[in-house]
C-alpha cells in the first residue's frame, strides 16, 4: 500500500517563521502619505497594534523565533497533514503527482488561526486586555475568538448585524470560545451611534463594523485591534505552513515543480509559497502560481504603480498591482478573493518574476471543487476552489506534455459552512464573465499621471 498522507511528528514543528522581506530581490517600497509623499512609519499603526507586531511588520530579519507558548498551542492542530491525491490523479489520468496540505483541520476550519494565535500571544505579553475585530459570516472572527480564549484575552467581535441575525452558527462558535459578539452598528461607539441615529434599523456593513472595531481600540488603552490578512506580519505567521510542507515533501521523497495557492488578501498563499520562493531565489526550479478570479484580474493584467484608494485621492499611496482607482471589476461570485489590489509583498514578488499570477473563471472553480470532493472527499471553501482549479489545469497539462510533474496545493480551508455557494452552482445560477481589454485600458488611463515605484513596469 502506498503512503497516502504524512503527519509530521510534533518534534518537527518549525521553530521559526520565515520573513521573505530579508530575501526580496527588490525591497518593498513603503506606503506613502498622500499629503506629504513621505513613507508612513510604524507609529501610524501604534494605536491599534502592539509593538512586537509592528516590529515584525517592518522587520528585515530572515527568521523570527516562534515563542514557546505559541508553539505549545499550535500543537492543538499543527503540524497539519499532507496528502497524496491518488484518487484525483487517477480520475484525471495524469502522470502528475499531486500533493495537498490540509489547513482545514484547525478547529475553526482554515489557515486563519496560524496568525490569530500569534497575534493573541503578542497582545497578551504587551499587556492588552481585549482584542477587537470585525467579521461578516464569522470565519476570521471565529479564529480570533478561539485564539484569544487560549491566551486568556477578552475578544470583542463587531459582527455585521444582518450576519448576526442570519448566521447563528459561527456566532455561536465565537461565543462558545468566550468572545463577545456585538451586532454592528452598535450604540457602543461614535461610529455606530451616528449610523443608528440616522437609521435605527440599519442592517450594518463590514465598513461600519471595521470603524467600530478600530475606534474601540483607539479609544481604550487596554484594547487593541486585530487583522487577519494583507499586512506583512500576518503573512509572516502563515509561513509555518510552507515550512512544514517542505519537510513533508522531503519525507515523500519529492520536491514540487509547481506550488499553487489562491490569493485574496494573500495570507494563505504567502504562508505556503514564501518558503518555496526562498528556494527559488536560491536557485531551485519551482513555479509558484497565485490564483485569482478571471473577472477581477488585479495581478494578471494591471501594471504595478502607486494607486490612491479613492477617487478623491486623499488616502495613502500603496505600491501594488492595480487597475486604477476607478476600475470597477466585472461580476464574479467568490468569497474572499475580491480585492481591488493585491498585498504589496505578493505584488512585488510578481513584479520580480518569482510568482506567476493565474486567473480562473468561477464556473471552473466550482467544477474543480466538485471533482475534488468526489475524488479526495474534502469539500473546499469557495476561495480554495480557485487553487484546486489551477491544480487540475496543471495536472491536465502534465498529461498533454507526458511529464511526471510534482504539484503541491495549499488546501486552505473546508467549505462546510459555505454549502449555499455550492447550491448556487449546482442549481445553475452562476455564470462566467470576461473583462474586455477596452475596459481595462480605460481604467488604466486613470493612473497614468500618478507617481510610479522605481521599478515601474508597464
Amino acid at each position, binding site marked *: 500500500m502506498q503512503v497516502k498522507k504524512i503527519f509530521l511528528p510534533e518534534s518537527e514543528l518549525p521553530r521559526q517563521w520565515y520573513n521573505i522581506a530579508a530575501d526580496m530581490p527588490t525591497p518593498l517600497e513603503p506606503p506613502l502619505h498622500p499629503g506629504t509623499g513621505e513613507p508612513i512609519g510604524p507609529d*501610524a499603526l501604534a494605536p491599534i497594534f502592539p509593538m512586537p507586531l509592528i516590529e515584525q511588520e517592518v522587520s528585515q530579519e530572515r527568521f523570527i523565533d516562534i515563542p514557546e507558548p505559541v508553539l505549545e498551542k499550535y500543537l492543538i492542530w499543527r503540524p497539519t497533514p499532507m496528502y497524496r491525491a491518488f484518487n484525483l490523479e487517477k480520475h484525471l489520468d495524469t502522470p502528475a503527482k499531486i500533493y495537498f496540505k490540509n489547513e482545514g483541520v484547525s478547529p475553526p476550519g482554515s489557515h486563519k488561526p496560524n496568525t490569530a494565535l500569534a497575534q493573541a500571544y503578542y497582545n497578551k505579553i504587551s499587556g492588552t486586555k481585549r482584542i477587537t475585530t470585525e467579521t*461578516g459570516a*464569522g470565519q476570521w472572527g471565529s479564529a480570533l475568538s478561539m485564539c484569544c480564549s487560549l491566551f486568556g484575552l477578552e475578544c470583542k467581535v463587531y459582527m455585521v448585524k444582518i*450576519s448576526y441575525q442570519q448566521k447563528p452558527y459561527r456566532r455561536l462558535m465565537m461565543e462558545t470560545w468566550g468572545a463577545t459578539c456585538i451586532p454592528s452598528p452598535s450604540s457602543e461607539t461614535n461610529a455606530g451611534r451616528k449610523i443608528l441615529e440616522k437609521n435605527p434599523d440599519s442592517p450594518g456593513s463590514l465598513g461600519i463594523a471595521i470603524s467600530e472595531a478600530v*475606534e474601540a481600540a483607539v479609544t481604550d488603552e487596554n484594547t487593541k485591534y486585530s487583522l487577519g490578512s494583507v499586512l506583512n506580519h500576518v503573512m509572516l505567521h502563515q509561513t509555518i505552513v510552507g515550512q512544514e510542507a517542505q519537510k513533508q515533501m522531503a519525507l515523500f521523497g519529492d520536491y514540487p515543480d509547481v506550488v499553487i495557492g489562491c490569493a485574496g488578501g494573500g495570507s494563505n498563499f504567502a504562508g505556503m509559497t514564501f518558503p518555496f520562493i526562498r528556494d527559488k531565489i536560491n536557485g531551485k526550479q519551482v513555479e509558484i502560481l497565485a490564483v485569482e478570479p478571471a473577472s477581477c484580474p488585479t495581478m494578471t493584467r494591471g501594471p504595478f504603480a502607486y494607486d490612491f*484608494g479613492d477617487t478623491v485621492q486623499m*488616502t495613502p499611496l500603496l505600491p*501594488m498591482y492595480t487597475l486604477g482607482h476607478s476600475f470597477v471589476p466585472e461580476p464574479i*461570485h467568490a468569497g474572499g478573493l475580491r*480585492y481591488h489590489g493585491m498585498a504589496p509583498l505578493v505584488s512585488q514578488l510578481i513584479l520580480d518574476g518569482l510568482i506567476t499570477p493565474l486567473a480562473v473563471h468561477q464556473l471552473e472553480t466550482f467544477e474543480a471543487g466538485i471533482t475534488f470532493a468526489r475524488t479526495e472527499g474534502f469539500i473546499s471553501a469557495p476561495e480554495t476552489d480557485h487553487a484546486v482549479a489551477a491544480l487540475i489545469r496543471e495536472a491536465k497539462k502534465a498529461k498533454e506534455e507526458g511529464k511526471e510533474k510534482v504539484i503541491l496545493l495549499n488546501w486552505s480551508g473546508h467549505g462546510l459552512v459555505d454549502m449555499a455557494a455550492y447550491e448556487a452552482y449546482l442549481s445553475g445560477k452562476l455564470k462566467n464573465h470576461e473583462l474586455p481589454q477596452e475596459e481595462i485600458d480605460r481604467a488604466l488611463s486613470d493612473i497614468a499621471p500618478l507617481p510610479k515605484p522605481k521599478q515601474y513596469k508597464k
Partner: protein
Amino acid sequence: MKNIVPPNERYEIRCPKLGHQISFSYCRVENQGLPCPKTIDCWHIHFRVRAYLKEELTLEEFNKAFVFRPKPKMMTLIDLIEQAKTEKEDNST
C-alpha cells in the same frame, strides 16, 4: 431579455464581503443608504441591475456608489485611526 425588476426577498445570493446568502434589498442600501459598490458585479447575472439602478438613482448617487472604489485595507485602517483619534481629542476638550 432579463427582468429589470429585482427578485423578491426569498431570492438570495452569496455576498462576497459577508460570506453568506443575502437578498437584493440589503445590497441596495449597504453603503449608508447607497448600493454596495459590488451590487452590479454580484447581481447583473440575475436581473438587469445596472438599468434598474440607473433609473432608481440620480447620476450623482450612481457615480458615488460605483465610481468610488473600496480602499485597500491598510489605507482604511490608517484613516480610521486618525478619525477615531480626532474624535477622542474633540470629546476630551
